[in-house]
């Protein structure tokens, strides 16, 4: 647990906010795919913390970013916080994305605000000299697109899709992934995905049918955030349940059942 001062908290695309925290412990140790568990209020309602993926860190400045969409009470309270206010956070929590084996092509698939942890991933991967990758990113509409240029600056070639066709291809980023994989026979690749459940389901299918590994960042309602309450269950492929907060949020696609 840390008390982290807010440095920046602004709308970066329609309904999407970037929040930058002064949190050197997080900046030092966070891995892409890990999350922060954020207390939005001091009063007894809403009761629970909110989990958000870490979207970036700056070790030198000791800062960490999250990018969130305003969807309910917690995120709307968050969006009203101003620089200088202090946020109570837990983290970095959970297990993040594994690095790709040398020589494999990282394929990133992100939907909406699910792009957030993939930004951090891309930045980390770009530290490997000469790394190239592909990013397939989907948004509802042009006005909700954010930060796609970051992927480009990290050495990823970016393809876009929007639900309404206002930008990039009309459709889903999984279709872009499929098209790409159809073209490349026997590519040594690994998929990293985050987004709505349907997206993850589709990525799992595609990866399985192409015989390449896929790492998915899952979401589940959370209580403790650290494996104590057993609230954030997801069905394990081997029977029983994994906990998103402790065993994930990133899982190898074959480990879990997505329904």
């Amino acid at each position, binding site marked *: *647990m840390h008390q982290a001062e807010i440095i920046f908290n602004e709308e970066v695309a329609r309904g999407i906010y970037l929040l930058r925290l002064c949190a050197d412990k997080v900046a030092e140790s966070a891995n892409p795919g890990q999350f922060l568990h954020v*207390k939005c209020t001091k009063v*007894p*309602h*809403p*009761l*629970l*913390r909110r989990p958000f993926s870490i979207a970036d860190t700056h070790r030198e400045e000791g800062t960490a970013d999250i990018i969130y969409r305003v969807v309910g009470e917690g995120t709307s309270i968050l969006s009203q916080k101003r620089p200088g206010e202090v946020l*109570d956070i*837990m983290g970095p929590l959970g297990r993040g994305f594994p690095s790709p084996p040398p020589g494999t092509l990282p394929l990133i698939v992100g939907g909406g605000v699910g792009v957030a942890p993939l930004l951090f991933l891309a930045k980390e991967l770009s530290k490997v000299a000469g790394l190239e990758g592909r990013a397939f990113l989907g948004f509802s509409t042009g006005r909700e697109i954010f930060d796609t240029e970051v992927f480009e600056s990290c050495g990823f070639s970016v393809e876009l899709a929007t639900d309404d066709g206002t930008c990039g291809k009309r459709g889903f980023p999984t279709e872009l992934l499929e098209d790409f994989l159809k073209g490349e026979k026997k590519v040594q690749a690994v998929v990293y995905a985050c987004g709505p459940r349907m997206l993850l389901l589709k990525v799992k299918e595609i990866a399985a049918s192409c015989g390449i590994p896929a790492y998915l960042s899952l979401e*589940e*309602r*959370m*209580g*403790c*955030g*650290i*494996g*104590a*309450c*057993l*609230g*954030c*269950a*997801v*069905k394990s492929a081997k*029977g*029983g*349940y994994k906990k998103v907060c402790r065993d994930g949020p990133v899982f190898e696609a074959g480990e879990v059942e997505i329904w």
Partner: protein
Amino acid sequence: MVDLSVKIAGISMKNPVMVASGTFGFGREYSRMYDMNELGAVVTKGITLLPKEGNPPPRLFETPAGLLNSVGLENPGVEGFIRDEWPYLKTLQVPIIVNIAGETVEEYRRIAQRLSPLEGISALEVNISCPNVEKGGMAFGRHPDSAYEVVRAVKEQSPFPVIAKLSPNVSDIREIALAVEEAGADAVSLINTVLGMAVDVEKKRPVFKRVFAGLSGPAVKPIALRMVYEVYEAIRIPVIGMGGIFSWRDAVEFILAGASAVAVGSAIFSDPVAPLKIIRGLEDYAARNLQTRISDLVGLAHRNAAEF
């Protein structure tokens, strides 16, 4: 200096603030965050005879100032507990209370038996109030006779003090409290979660697969407090109060209403160090009110009610 220590059901605690079963796992999860030995006692997640995989997701749903859970007693079973959790727990300097649950009286008896060699357990908390399982659980806690039977069975087997954890989903909780007192319980703890539910208006169906789930958190505090007050007047064994404790003020309310100790549950999710803050708050409160022993505050609201 305020003396925060309490002794209930033979358990000596350095302060009256415990963590509630199921909200603190087996302690280890929180051990990196702070020194658990500062707590009054640690109560483990509920243990069943055989391992239990628990309920399918979603298991949690937030409600106004509250939380519905349908975890369904996921746990490694008593053997798994002894093998994987006890070795760590026994190294702690804090009283450990093991929460147990069963589908039949016989199961409760066997768990108690299996735990009885574990030196260092401070007490068993007998969960006859879990609303999230198909069989047993709350079913026992809703009738005085079955509550009696379960507690009796555990008490016969257990070398440790026995705490009966009561369900709030009853017409008259005093009846149940009296029954478990008669069965030999050394203390009662209350409340477990209140039976509730939520509906998903988009999917037009219950949020939880098992439809009903257990409500906890600040929302239920007024109910829990009332039950503690009622039970305190009905029985002579000590009462451990819980249900929605969020700040030291809430803890004081429970103590004044008759709780000899309190447990913090859901509030831990909001703030893992809430129990520690509450301990400090209690200490300050007692000092401000010129009490040298926290135990002198227990049940004071009953005596003062007459003065109205």
